[in-house]
């Protein structure tokens, strides 16, 4: 058992998977000698060569489109979009192509490919280096969307994503890269896709979160525990396919549900969870299903006062829990 940061877990897992399976290639902007702007691929081009770790032109549609073709013809590409904010030139390739290939060929052709994308704010990245993009992609049938929050899950989920027979969007919160450490077994374990984790057991309020917010939710739960409020925290880990049973079982137990995400609120991922709970657990609810989410402005502002205003933090979650507990 070794202690690793979030990004060390990702880098080591990429290397281990590439040693295990010669069909895996990496492609993206600056992933080669530089090792990626966050160093997630540091040293991999030296170990695996320029043919398997490919510095691409600044062409996101190409990164995804060429990955699709490579997956068609026997490779297992892991593409890096340098910042999730830059993924939109590739939207057509993800939504109309990657996500539909198996369905539109009636299972004649699947695409084993992973798209890694650093997302999220709180890093002084402003409008174009801070965005949470998950809701655009969780809407699409045919692509799995994964958001790990710990080094342990980053490794286990990345292994599952790379080994999966279908396209996976793997979202990594930038603020977790070096701020979170954890024990990571040296074994070849995998964390299955589509499986949420109950990261804190409780009885009065269910808080559902993912990514950086899974940490903030735990911190908020610990704070209100001193006030006698028992909170159950669910780290979704995979947003699609959703682990509906873990969500519903918890809400049926607590009767109160708070959904937390950093992405802006309107039409956000939390709306789907709220709808699920309303449809499937209505008889168990003792309070309205509520959300704490980013405000509906077009992006995260740069100035630190403004950025702090934008970001969901443990304080905001704590007050949301208190209101719900008192309802």
């Amino acid at each position: 058992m070794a202690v690793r940061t979030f990004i060390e877990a990702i880098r080591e897992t990429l290397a281990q998977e590439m040693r295990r399976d010669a069909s895996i290639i990496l492609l993206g902007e600056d992933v080669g000698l530089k090792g990626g702007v966050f160093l997630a691929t540091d040293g991999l081009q030296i170990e695996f060569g320029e043919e398997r770790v490919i510095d691409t032109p600044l062409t996101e549609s190409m990164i995804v489109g060429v990955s699709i073709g490579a997956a068609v013809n026997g490779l297992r590409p892991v593409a890096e979009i340098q910042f999730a904010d830059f993924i939109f030139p590739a939207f057509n390739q993800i939504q109309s192509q990657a996500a539909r290939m198996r369905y539109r060929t009636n299972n004649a052709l699947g695409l084993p490919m992973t798209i890694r994308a650093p997302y999220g704010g709180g890093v002084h990245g402003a409008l174009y280096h801070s965005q949470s993009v998950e809701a655009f992609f969780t809407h699409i049938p045919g692509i799995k969307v994964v958001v790990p929050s710990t080094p342990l899950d980053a490794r286990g989920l990345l292994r599952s994503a790379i080994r999966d027979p279908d396209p996976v969007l793997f979202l990594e919160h930038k603020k977790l890269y070096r701020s979170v450490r954890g024990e990571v077994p040296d074994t070849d374990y995998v964390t299955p896709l589509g499986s949420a984790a109950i990261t804190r057991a409780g009885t009065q309020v269910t808080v559902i979160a993912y990514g950086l917010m899974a940490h903030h939710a735990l911190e908020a739960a610990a704070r209100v525990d001193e006030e006698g409020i028992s909170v159950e925290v669910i780290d979704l880990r995979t947003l699609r396919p959703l682990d509906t049973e873990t969500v519903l079982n918890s809400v049926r137990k607590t009767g109160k549900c708070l959904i937390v995400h950093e992405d802006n609120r309107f039409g956000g991922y939390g709306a789907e969870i709220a709808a699920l709970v309303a449809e499937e657990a209505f008889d168990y609810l003792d309070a309205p299903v509520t959300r704490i989410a980013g405000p509906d402005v077009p992006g995260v502002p740069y100035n630190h006062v403004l950025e702090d205003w934008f970001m969901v933090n443990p304080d905001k979650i704590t007050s949301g829990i208190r209101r719900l507990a008192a309802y």
Partner: protein
Amino acid sequence: MDVSANQPNDLTAPAASAGLTRDDLVGLYRVMALGRALDERMWILNRSGRVAFVISGQGHEGAQAGITWALRPGEDWLAPYYRSITAVLRMGMTPREILLGSYARADDPSSGGRQMPNHYGHIGRKILSVSSPVASQVLHAVGIALAAKLRGTGEVVVTSTGEGSSNQGDVHEALNFAAIHHLPFIYVVENNGYAISVPSARELPVDDVASRAVAYGIPGVIVRGTDVLGCYIAAKEAVRRARAGEGPTLIEAKVERLTAHSSDDQQTRYRSEEEIAAHRALDPLPAFRGQLRAAGVLTDAAEAAMTAEIAAEVEDATRFAEAAADPVVEDVARWVFAEDWPGERPPAWGFGTGRD
């Protein structure tokens, strides 16, 4: 470079020097004639209410046959588009398989009846699935070529689009990357002068898409769709380059669109009857037939036998597809992923259709 500027009167000698036998020449004509006959049948089926949609390859047969004749069916890849009927026939799809798609039957190898007709695909024959957002497959073809290079398979990958689609940003991204890595990739532009209704003068600031090749440091070759032999020779050189690791080639084939854009288009709204008639004079089928007959390659007897065979094949495919079973609703939610997922099942209240 317009290699079709001076077409020979007698193609026997240049065909032989290009390595084509008399059987090759007859085979080229046969696949063109089959493509035309099948295409015409699809329109009849559409106009008689049997199939809901047709998007046609009429006028493109010479370019498609000539270019794909340089490939090895089943070994090289084709990422076609919706006018590629003759190309997919050459690469191994059968008339039955194509009409199963027109009828959207369960056994349609392209999509099991999920996609619109003429969205060809057959993975077993290395024909990639067509989608409707134009030129999106050009990047896939480059990715297939990247894998071919890294895996050392020796495969060559051809994709084709119209000249309207050639303006998409994905085409630039694809050619740029393919040229950087010297990939075994051939981009074919079938320039029929129209993007649905918009003439090429409103789509392109230059006369030839091929002139853009210089921006990628690759050859840009122009051929005419009536010059089937020229199309073959251009493709043969492109394939040689690809297999030798010299990188991609752009081939622009000047063709005519002999039908409306699709069965839902009324082309007389934007094309005059005179223009349509003038373009019919550039039909590659009678042009190539004339060359073959002049050279004594296509005799009366051989042509009569071929015509009868093709008619029988089209008739057989029609009867087969007409009688084939539709897909069933029980399977419609399958193959979103390789496996079914509990969280993707309809909830107790259903998908909102009231029937789950």
